[in-house]
């Protein structure tokens, strides 16, 4: 149950549906630093793929490749079976991959409705009178959030006045509204308390139920186990393990995540 053997089996059993997004032995180098090596993962419609790893395991590098901020140096990156190299976040968005970052999902000073449509504002009128359809934007923001189960009092409040969990949820609702097929979430629960984390995970599940493929980056195995269908464990830039939900115990995931044998060693050292 380690070192990608499981993953190869998964790749062989590819006769089910074609994955929305697939990374096959992708590597990324920054100069002579190997940030990511031979990492493979699949994202399917209506499933959540969790990427777990400690700090520096290569999670953010992986995200940056999928979201179009960086390009991979080796291996294959396929979107619906087509080999791609994304040049910009815009290109990723156009292909249906929306990324919600932990800290920079929104512009805090701007009202919720302006944030919701940022970069994809609807317009009406023509020529010099071309303008944003403000009423429509306000209305749609409210109803789209409501549909995800987010009941906001006032779409005019600066989004910075919302709590961290609410901000993440708005960003998720935004991605769903704009028809994203794949949602990439960068540590959505990292800075949140227990209750807020639960709220966010609920919206992650709602996005999955809406038929999206979700990539959930986290270092919390408990959160991952709650919602995940597939799990990829990164350690120092390479894949330590890959699991599917069936046949995986939470304890095993926690143990792997906590460092496995390293943790046992540590408990010996600290033991009295």
């Amino acid at each position, binding site marked *: 149950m380690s070192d990608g053997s499981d993953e190869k089996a998964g790749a062989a059993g590819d006769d089910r549906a074609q994955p929305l997004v697939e990374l096959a032995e992708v590597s990324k180098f920054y100069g002579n630093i190997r940030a990511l090596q031979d990492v493979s993962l699949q994202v399917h419609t209506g499933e959540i793929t969790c990427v777990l790893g400690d700090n520096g395991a290569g999670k953010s590098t992986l995200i940056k490749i999928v979201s179009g901020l960086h390009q991979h140096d080796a291996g294959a990156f396929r979107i619906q079976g087509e080999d791609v190299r994304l040049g910009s976040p815009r290109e990723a968005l156009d292909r249906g991959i929306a990324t919600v970052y932990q800290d920079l999902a929104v512009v805090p000073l701007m009202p919720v409705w302006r944030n919701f449509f940022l970069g994809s504002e609807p317009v009406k009128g023509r020529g010099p009178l071309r303008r944003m359809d403000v009423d429509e934007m306000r209305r749609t923001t409210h109803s789209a959030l409501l549909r995800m189960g987010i009941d906001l009092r006032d779409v005019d409040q600066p989004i910075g*006045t919302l709590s961290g969990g609410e901000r993440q949820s708005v960003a998720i609702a935004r991605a769903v509204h704009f028809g994203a097929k794949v949602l990439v979430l960068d540590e959505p629960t990292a800075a949140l308390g227990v209750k807020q984390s639960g709220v966010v995970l609920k919206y992650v599940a709602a996005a999955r139920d809406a038929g999206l493929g979700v990539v959930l980056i986290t270092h919390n195995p408990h959160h991952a186990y709650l919602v995940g269908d597939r799990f990829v464990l990164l350690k120092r830039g390479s894949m330590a393990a890959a699991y599917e939900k069936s046949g995986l115990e939470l304890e095993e995931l926690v143990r792997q995540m906590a460092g496995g044998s390293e943790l046992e060693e540590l408990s010996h050292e600290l033991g009295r």
Partner: protein
Amino acid sequence: MTAAAPAGSPAGPSGSAPGDGGGPAPDGSADERLVHRSLPARLMRRPELGAVVGAIALFVFFSLVADSFLRASSLSTVLYFSSTIGIMAVPVALLMIGGEFDLSTGVMVTSSALVSSMFSYQMTANTWVGVGVSLLVTLAIGFFNGFMLTRTKLPSFIITLGTFLMLTGLNLGMTKLISGTVTTKSISDMEGFDSARAVFASTLTLGGVDVQITVVWWLALIVLATWILLRTRAGNWIFAVGGGVDAARAVGVPVGRTKIGLYMGVALAAWISGQHLLFNYDTVQSGEGVGNELIYIAAAVIGGCLLTGGYGSAVGAAVGAFIFGMANKGIVYAQWNPDWFKFFLGAMLLLATLLNAWIRKRAEVTR
């Protein structure tokens, strides 16, 4: 998601769109949890409030201490002086909302006037040709600022400080090289001068009151800038690149193009100012303009723009310019020594900024 939203986050709303300050919830989202906000509370959320209060206070003050202040001719003079600052302060405010500075604006105005004058004179062309060439050159300078900024990722303070110094030198050097002196030759007898003067430096009489045409330009720019800021996609992007550039980029906002556009907007206003300078005085002093860039920035800040970007309004910057105009001319009408003007302005800048910060805090609490 019904938990009370914690307060204590950054300042008020990014826009000052009618209704941005929302009264009872906007259409379709009436909600009993949303406490009705009183009119003062809504006003408090607008970025230009501090400037408006200051302007009213200053107006009342000078009306009391200077007998001649309320005369139509005096007010016309105040408006004219305000407009010469305001034409630049408005686009500078947009740029600051977009999170950037421009230190080259003061001398860019002079450059624009010099190019126009010297091109027409040297080529013995119709002055309108010079005006057109000047527009292209000035826009190119704005593009250069924006392009360098987005390409090098250096702070705009450094980039535009460089442009400022280069333009200062170019203005003097080129003028001496071409005209032999530090002043351009008179172009008043050249073809097209009168019509250009009518557009850039004439005086209209409205109801017996003389109004300089720069006031019209100023008002037009305020309307245009407010429209762009609050009702167009570009306006949304301006707030976004100033308030959270990484988030903006992540959702596909063309950050580079937005910033370059802002710098070119500033350049466009510099061209208008420069043409006014030229056609008002006929000749241009090549050393002029140094220091004005800070006045424009100060006007924008008094008008409620945050130095860190993402917050402010065009109307606020215009009111800031009006405050400058009143202070500058009011001191004269009150028959004080005008030497004190700058001290007065500095104190006012500090006061206005403190007032703005205080108001924003209050607005957050009363929400």
